[in-house]
């Protein structure tokens, strides 16, 4: 049996000549260190690629059912979720594997950065990697649009509003992005073509180039403190290193295979436990109450745009991302030689720590979005009973005014409600009655965070509201008093 198979294999190979072409690639020598225990640092790239293949397989599966048409897409997603056997699972894997791909690409890049593996002669390997990161993010955004729900619709609207700020070309850019004057059928078709044809084509081409360089320029040896990269001598040193090297087809490949298998297991596990994402609200722009949020890879940007001062906003939207990309591209040209070990490169370590912390904090801010009004807090969250237990009838009336005038959308009581403005649980300690009336009537001086309510709160309502706000203090705590300086006007 074995002999027959071997003969069959030989028959094919003598015609296809595959073995001669493929085996040298699989058996190409890699530095000894990369095949040893330190080889575990090298598994993230192949895991990213494994997830890409998972995306292609599940993507083809989804394309069998999904209808990329604005009037049918939502229904076909629900059909996948509810009717198509295991359709929910395929959608779920596609979402979690896509998320995993973003994570793996970022980890892979961080490892390459920390180990200085981008230095001579692997500058182009890094550059193609930057391209792969950008396309992966492009896939994440276009994929979010294909989930044709309210988030998708308003996500495109936000993207278009940003593009619309580009000087002069803005309006044309908007129409190119959405495919016409309004968001609709052409928009979805455009993002479908990008997500299914254009970006995957680019991705595979760049991946091919990336892997070609991995083969021709080789993977870097694990960094050793004190062993510096010098472009003049590196090639010869690396050549010597490879003489003692080991074939990739061996320990290194086993590590890749094991880690990739674990990653796939985790992805499938997450997919099975959490299920697919959405589709959430119907993509009907006239349905108010939509609360658009980007998918997690873009929450940091959502946070950044919300927190940056208005004057910097257009810069942050249009110039900052370009600077980030230029920065990434410049990495191997700024530091092309010298130490590779992270223990000798404090700036690189600091950059990763600061950058990672920034992204994490902004993502958390984007998740909690304290700057967003809670649109239904005024009708959903009652005034805490604690607060009104001993209230006078006038104060109770004020509590009703407080709720009815939507104050709660931006102001929390006992931590519940909007957080755009300050929590008012103890505002009576901070502001006097005249100050409160002034603040409510005229808003933040100079047009700040709080709108002026003067026209929409009648005198009787204002009297009750002020009484209620003054009563908001801890038990036995005196009310705030006017400062001696008559011009002093503390902020709430």
């Amino acid at each position, binding site marked *: 049996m074995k002999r027959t198979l071997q003969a069959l294999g030989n028959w094919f190979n003598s015609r296809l*000549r595959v073995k001669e072409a493929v085996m040298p690639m699989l058996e190409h020598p890699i530095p000894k260190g990369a095949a040893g225990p330190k080889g575990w640092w090298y598994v993230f790239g192949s895991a990213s690629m494994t997830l890409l293949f998972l995306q292609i397989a599940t993507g083809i599966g989804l394309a069998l059912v999904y209808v990329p*048409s*604005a*009037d*049918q*897409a*939502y229904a076909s997603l629900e059909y996948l979720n509810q009717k198509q056997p295991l359709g929910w699972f395929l959608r779920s894997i596609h979402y979690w594997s896509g998320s995993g791909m973003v994570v793996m690409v970022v980890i892979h890049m961080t490892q390459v950065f920390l180990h200085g593996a981008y230095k001579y002669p692997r500058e182009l390997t890094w550059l193609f990697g930057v391209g792969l990161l950008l396309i992966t993010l492009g896939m994440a955004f276009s994929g979010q649009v294909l989930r*044709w729900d309210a988030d998708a*619709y*308003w996500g495109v*609207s*936000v993207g278009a*509003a940003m*593009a*619309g*700020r580009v000087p002069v070309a*803005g*309006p*044309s850019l*908007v*129409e*190119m992005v*959405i495919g*016409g*004057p*309004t*968001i*609709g*059928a*052409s928009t*979805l078709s455009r993002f479908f073509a990008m997500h299914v044809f254009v970006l995957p084509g680019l991705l595979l081409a760049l991946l091919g180039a990336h892997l070609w360089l991995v083969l021709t320029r080789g993977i870097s040896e694990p960094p050793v403190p004190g062993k510096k990269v010098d472009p003049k001598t590196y090639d010869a040193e690396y050549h010597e290193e490879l003489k003692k090297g080991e074939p990739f087809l061996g320990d290194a490949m086993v590590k890749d295979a094991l880690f990739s298998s674990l990653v796939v297991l985790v992805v499938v596990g997450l997919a099975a436990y959490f299920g697919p994402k959405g589709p959430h609200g119907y*993509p*009907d*722009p*006239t349905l*108010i109450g*939509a*609360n*658009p949020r980007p998918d997690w890879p873009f929450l940091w940007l959502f946070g950044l*745009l*919300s927190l940056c001062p*208005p004057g910097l*906003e257009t810069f942050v939207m249009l110039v900052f991302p370009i600077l980030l990309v230029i920065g990434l591209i410049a990495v191997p040209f700024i530091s092309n030689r010298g130490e590779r070990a992270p223990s000798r490169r404090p700036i690189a370590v600091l950059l990763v720590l600061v950058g990672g912390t920034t992204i994490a904090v902004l993502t958390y801010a984007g998740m909690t979005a304290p*700057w*967003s*009004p809670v*649109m239904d807090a005024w009708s959903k969250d009652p005034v805490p009973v604690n607060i009104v237990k001993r209230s006078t009838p006038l104060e109770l009336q004020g509590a009703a005014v407080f709720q009815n*005038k*939507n104050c709660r*959308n931006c102001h929390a009581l006992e931590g519940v409600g909007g957080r*755009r403005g300050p929590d008012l649980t103890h505002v009576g300690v901070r502001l006097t009655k005249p100050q409160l009336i002034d603040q409510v009537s005229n*808003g933040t001086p100079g*047009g*700040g*965070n*709080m*709108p*002026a309510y003067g*026209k*929409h709160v009648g005198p009787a309502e204002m009297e009750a509201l002020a009484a209620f706000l003054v009563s908001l203090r801890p038990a036995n705590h005196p009310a705030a008093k006017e400062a001696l300086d008559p011009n002093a006007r503390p902020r709430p």
Partner: protein
Amino acid sequence: MSEPSPRTEPKPPRRNVLLWITGGVGAAAAAALGVPLAGFVAGALNAHPEIWVPLGPVSDFPLNETRLTTFLQPKELSQPWDGPAGKAGAYVRNLGKDAAGIEQFWVFAMNCTHLGCPVTWFPQSGLFMCPCHGGVYYENGDHASGPPPRGLYKMPWRITHGVLEVQAPHLPTLQDTLEHPSKFVQLGLIDRKTTT
């Protein structure tokens, strides 16, 4: 794997002519294909006709109340398979007759001027609020607080035979609002007359 490589001999001069011809024909082929293809891709930039959509009789809009009014985008600005995305909304407020006895309205697009999210009208406090970054507008559309750089986009309206009509809106953005002719017209790229 070692195939004999083709022998290189000095080329006769007519080969150069063939090279020139190939270059010329190739360029012609690229242009013949590329120009229409670029035109197809840029098709989204075509001028959009100015179309008026009826929102309903003036009597449908109660005095001094802001109402969300929805309508379908006209077929000239949409595609038959737009589905729910082919709908559009506007906040309409009937201001009553002015001194000259002419009905006056405020008609605002739903898109926040900050980043295009949908604003919600709160009649109790007379404010429009945006759920994304907390932009707030007064009932007359003026910016009240938060990050928006300007007030709500105003939609052109008119009354024809007692029916309130609005100009079918494109997606409004800061440089291409609904209030004045689009940037293309301003830049002279499109003749205003051909768009009407």
